[in-house]
C-alpha cells in the first residue's frame, strides 16, 4: 500500500520549492522585456540617461535572476528525486519538453546573461542590445516549454499506455506540442510575469517620485511600466486560461470546483460571485449569482452546458469500473504478453486505466474493490472546492484590479502628471499584489488538477518515490533553511540597491589605455 505520509510530504516539498521558484521567475520574464524596451530606446535615441535606466533595472534584474536560476535547478531534478514513479510513468512524454527547454531556452538565456552583464564595454551598442533580447527570448522560451510539460499534465494528449513497459509513451508528438491547454497557459503565465515586472518598476519609480529622487529615471520608467503593464494586464485577463476547461472531465471538474457548482445547470449557467462551498455537504451556501455569464465564458455559446460536480463524480464512478477491466487486462498481459483475450479487453478499456488506479489508495488490488470503495474513489476526484472557489476569486479580482490600476497609470503618464501623491503611494503599496496573484494562480491550477498528477492517467499519490518520511523531512528542512536565508539576503540587497539608486556610468575600455579610463573614476569596489 501507498504511504500517504510520504505522498503528502512530497507534495508539500514540491509546492514549497515551486512556489518559491515562482517568486523570482515572473519578475525575470517581465523585467527582461522591460530591459529590452529601455535599451532599445537607448540605442535609437543615443541618450545616456536610457543607458543608466537600463543598467539600473539590469542590476535589480541580476539580483533576482540568480535566485530564479538557483531554485530552478531543484525543479529540474525534483521529479526524479521525489516523483520517481511519475518520472518513469510519463518520462517518455514529459521529459522531452524539459530537455528541449534546456537546449533551446536555458542555454540561450544563461550564455547571453553573462555577456549582458560583462559585455557593456566589449560589445557594440547593437551587439549588447542583441544579448539583452536573447536573454528575454530565452527566459520566455523556457516558460513555453515548461508550460507545454505542465499543459500535458492538465490535458494529456498524444500519448498511450504501453503494457510492455508499464508507462505512457508518445503516440503523436504534435499533439503534445500544440496542446491547446499549454498554449493558453503560456500566454496567461508570461503575461502575469509582465504584469509583475510592470508593477515592480512602477512601484519603485513611484517611490523615487514620492521622495523627489532620481526624477529623470523615475518618470521614464513610470511611462514604460504603465504602457507595458496596461497591455499585459489586459492580456492576462482577456487571454486568461479558461479556454481549456471544456476539454476533459478533469478540467471540467476544475471549472466546476472553482465555481462551487455541484449540479449541472440549464445552459447557459450563471456565474457565482460569492458563496460558501463545502466539500462534505456537497453544496454551496449563500450563493450570489449573475445569470448566463459562466456559460458564456466557459463554452462561448448560449447552449453549451457546464457540467456540475455531482454528475462528473457519477461519470468518474463509471470510468473506474471500466478502468478495472483495463487493469485486469494489464495484469494478465504482464504474465503472458500474447494473451489475446486480455489484449482485446485492454484495447477496449485502455483509456480508463488511470481511473482504476484511483482505487489503489484504498485497496492494493483494484480488482478487489467493492461498490463502496469505488464510490469513495469516485468522490476522491473532487478537488478542494472551497479553496479553489475562494482562491480563484482573489486571483481574478486582482487581475481586474491591475487593469484599472495600469489604466490609471497610463492616463497619468500620457498627461505627464507624475505628482499625484495618492497614486504614487498606492503604486508602492501595490507592489506585493502581483506575487500574491501569481502564487494563488499556481495553487488554483495545481490544486484544481488533484487528485491527478496527470489528468485521468496517473493519480498523484502513485507518482511519489519510495522514500521515508525522515528523508523528506530532512530535505524540507534543508531547502527551507537554505531558501529562507537566500530570501532574506535577496530582499535586503534589492532594497539597498533601490535605496542607493541609479549610477551614471562612464566608458571603460577593457584594454590598457590610461588616458581614456582615468583611474580616479572608479573605486576598487565595483558598482556591480
Amino acid at each position, binding site marked *: 500500500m501507498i504511504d500517504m505520509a510520504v505522498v503528502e510530504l512530497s507534495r508539500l516539498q514540491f509546492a514549497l520549492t515551486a512556489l518559491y521558484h515562482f517568486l523570482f521567475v515572473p519578475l525575470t520574464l517581465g523585467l527582461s522585456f522591460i530591459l529590452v524596451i529601455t535599451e532599445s530606446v537607448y540605442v535609437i535615441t543615443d541618450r545616456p540617461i536610457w543607458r543608466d535606466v537600463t543598467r539600473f533595472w539590469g542590476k535589480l534584474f541580476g539580483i533576482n535572476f540568480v535566485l530564479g536560476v538557483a531554485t530552478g535547478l531543484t525543479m529540474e531534478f525534483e521529479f526524479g528525486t521525489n516523483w520517481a514513479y511519475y518520472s518513469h510513468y510519463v518520462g517518455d512524454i514529459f521529459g522531452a519538453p524539459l530537455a528541449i527547454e534546456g537546449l533551446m531556452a*536555458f542555454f540561450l538565456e544563461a550564455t547571453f546573461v553573462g555577456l549582458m552583464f560583462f559585455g557593456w564595454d566589449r560589445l557594440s551598442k547593437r551587439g549588447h542590445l542583441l544579448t539583452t533580447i536573447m536573454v528575454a527570448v530565452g527566459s520566455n522560451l523556457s516558460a513555453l516549454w515548461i508550460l507545454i510539460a505542465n499543459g500535458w499534465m492538465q490535458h494529456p494528449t498524444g500519448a498511450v499506455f504501453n503494457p510492455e513497459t508499464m*508507462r505512457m509513451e508518445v503516440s503523436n508528438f504534435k499533439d503534445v506540442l500544440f496542446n491547446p491547454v499549454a498554449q493558453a497557459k503560456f500566454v496567461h503565465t508570461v503575461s502575469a510575469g509582465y504584469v509583475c515586472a510592470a508593477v515592480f518598476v512602477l512601484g519603485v519609480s513611484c517611490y523615487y517620485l514620492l521622495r523627489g529622487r532620481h526624477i529623470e529615471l523615475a518618470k521614464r520608467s513610470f511611462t514604460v511600466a504603465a504602457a507595458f503593464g496596461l497591455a499585459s494586464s489586459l492580456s492576462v485577463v482577456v487571454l486568461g486560461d479558461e479556454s481549456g476547461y471544456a476539454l476533459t472531465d478533469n478540467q471540467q471538474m476544475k471549472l466546476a470546483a472553482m465555481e462551487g457548482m455541484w449540479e449541472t445547470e440549464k445552459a447557459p449557467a450563471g456565474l457565482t460571485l460569492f458563496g460558501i462551498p463545502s466539500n462534505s455537504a456537497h453544496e454551496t451556501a449563500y450563493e450570489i449569482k449573475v445569470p448566463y455569464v459562466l456559460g458564456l465564458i466557459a463554452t462561448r455559446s448560449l447552449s453549451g452546458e457546464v457540467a456540475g460536480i455531482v454528475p462528473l463524480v457519477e461519470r468518474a464512478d463509471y470510468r473506474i469500473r471500466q478502468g478495472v477491466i483495463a487493469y485486469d487486462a494489464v495484469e494478465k498481459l504482464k504474465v503472458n504478453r500474447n494473451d489475446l483475450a486480455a489484449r482485446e479487453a485492454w484495447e477496449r478499456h485502455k483509456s480508463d486505466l488511470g481511473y482504476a488506479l484511483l482505487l489503489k489508495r484504498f485497496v492494493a488490488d483494484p480488482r478487489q474493490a467493492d461498490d463502496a470503495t469505488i464510490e469513495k474513489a469516485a468522490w476522491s476526484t473532487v478537488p478542494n472546492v472551497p479553496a479553489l472557489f475562494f482562491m480563484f476569486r482573489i486571483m481574478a479580482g486582482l487581475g481586474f484590479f491591475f487593469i484599472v490600476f495600469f489604466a490609471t497609470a497610463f492616463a497619468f503618464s500620457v498627461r505627464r502628471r507624475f505628482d499625484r501623491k495618492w497614486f504614487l503611494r498606492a503604486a508602492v503599496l501595490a507592489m506585493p499584489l502581483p506575487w500574491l496573484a501569481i502564487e494563488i494562480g499556481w495553487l488554483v491550477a495545481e490544486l484544481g488538477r488533484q487528485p491527478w498528477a496527470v489528468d485521468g492517467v496517473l493519480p498523484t499519490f502513485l507518482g511519489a518515490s519510495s522514500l521515508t518520511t525522515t528523508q523528506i523531512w530532512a530535505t524540507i528542512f534543508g531547502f527551507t533553511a537554505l531558501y529562507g536565508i537566500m530570501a532574506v539576503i535577496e530582499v535586503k540587497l534589492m532594497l539597498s540597491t533601490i535605496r542607493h539608486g541609479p549610477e551614471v556610468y562612464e566608458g571603460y575600455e577593457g584594454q590598457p589605455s590610461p588616458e581614456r579610463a582615468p583611474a580616479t573614476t572608479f573605486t576598487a569596489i*565595483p558598482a556591480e
Partner: protein
Amino acid sequence: MTIPFDYETMRLIWWVLMGVLLIGFALTDGFDLGSASLLPFVGRTDAERRMVINAIGPTWEGNQVWFILGGGAIFAAWPFVYAVSFSGFYIAMFLVLSAFILRPVGFKYRSKKPDPAWRARWDWALFVGGFVPALVFGVAVGNVLQGVPFRLDSDMRSFYEGTLLGLFSPFALLGGLVSVAMLVLHGAGWLTLKLEDGPVRDRAQRFGQVAALAAFVLYALGGVWLAMGDIGYRLVGTVDPLGPSNPRMAEAAHAAGAWLANYGAHPWMILAPLLGLAGPLVALLGIRGRKDVLVFAGSSMANLGIIASVGLSMFPFILPSSIDARSSLLVWNASSSHTTLFIMLLVTLIFLPIVLAYTAWAYKVMFGRITTRDVNLNPDFY
C-alpha cells in the same frame, strides 16, 4: 512517422549523446567547479580572489546549463535512469543541489558589499559550490560501478535499499577523489589560460601539479581495483536490443573483473583509459614547460578519457542493481520509446550546433586574460 534508424541504433546514439552531455559538462562547467574549489587557496586577498571569480564569472552560467540539460536529457531519453538514480541517491542529490544553489548567488551577491566578512563567507560558499559536487559526482560514479541496491517491481516502481553511509565505500571514495583531482586540474588549466602572470596563477599551477599527479595515480589505482577487486557485472543470456524498455526482461549477474571485459572484445576502446592516463601527464608537462595551452588541453583530455572509460567499461550497463538480478538498467532496456528518442535526436541535431556557435561567440567576446587592472577598474566585474 517513419524513423530512419532502428531502435537499437537510436539507443546507441542516445547512449553516446548522454556521454557527450556528461563530457560537455565536465569540459565546461568542470573548470568552474575546479576553479571554485581552488578559490580560497590560490587567492589570499580580495583582489586576488576576484581575479579567479572574474575568470569564470561571465561564462560559468552558460556552462552550468550542461548540468541542467544533462538532467533533462536523461529524463527524456533514459527515464528509468532518471527515476531510479535520483530517488535512490536522494540525500546525495540534495547535497549537490544545495551546493549548486550557492553558486549563482555566490557569484552575484559577493560583490554587492565591500565588507570583508561578507565576502569571506561567499568565498566559502563558492568553494562548497565547487568542491561538493565534484566529490559527490565521483562518489556516485564509484557507486554505479559497484552496483546500486535497488529493485524494480512488476509495475516498474523502484525501491532503494541502501543507506546514505553505504554510499561512501572505499571504492566510491576513490571515485570521488579521482573526480576532485581531475576537476581541480581542469580548473588550474583554465586559470593558467585566463589569468595574467602573477601570484594567483602561480599558485593555481602549483595545485595543478599536485592534482595532475593525484589524478594519474588514483585513476590508475581505480583501474587496478577493477581488474583485481570484486567489482563488475555481466549479462546472463541475451537481451533483445530492439525489445521493449522493460528492465525485468534481462538478467544480470555479479562478476568480478567483468568491467574490463569490453577492452578484450573491442581493443579500440582502450584509447579512452589511455587518454585518461595521458591527460594529467600532458597537463603536468605543460605546467613544467610553461606551455599554457598544453595544460588546458591535458586537463581536457583527462576529463574526456576518464569519463568515456567509465561508460565504455560498463557498456551495455548503465545502472546495475546489486540486489536484484532482474532490475539492472541497460542501454537496451531503460530508454524512452523509439519515437521519443528520434524526436529528441532531431531537436539535438538542430539546436546543439546553434548552442555551440553562440557559446563560442560568447567566449570570443570575453577572450583575453584577466588583469589586476581590470579587477580594480571595470565596474561590470564581480
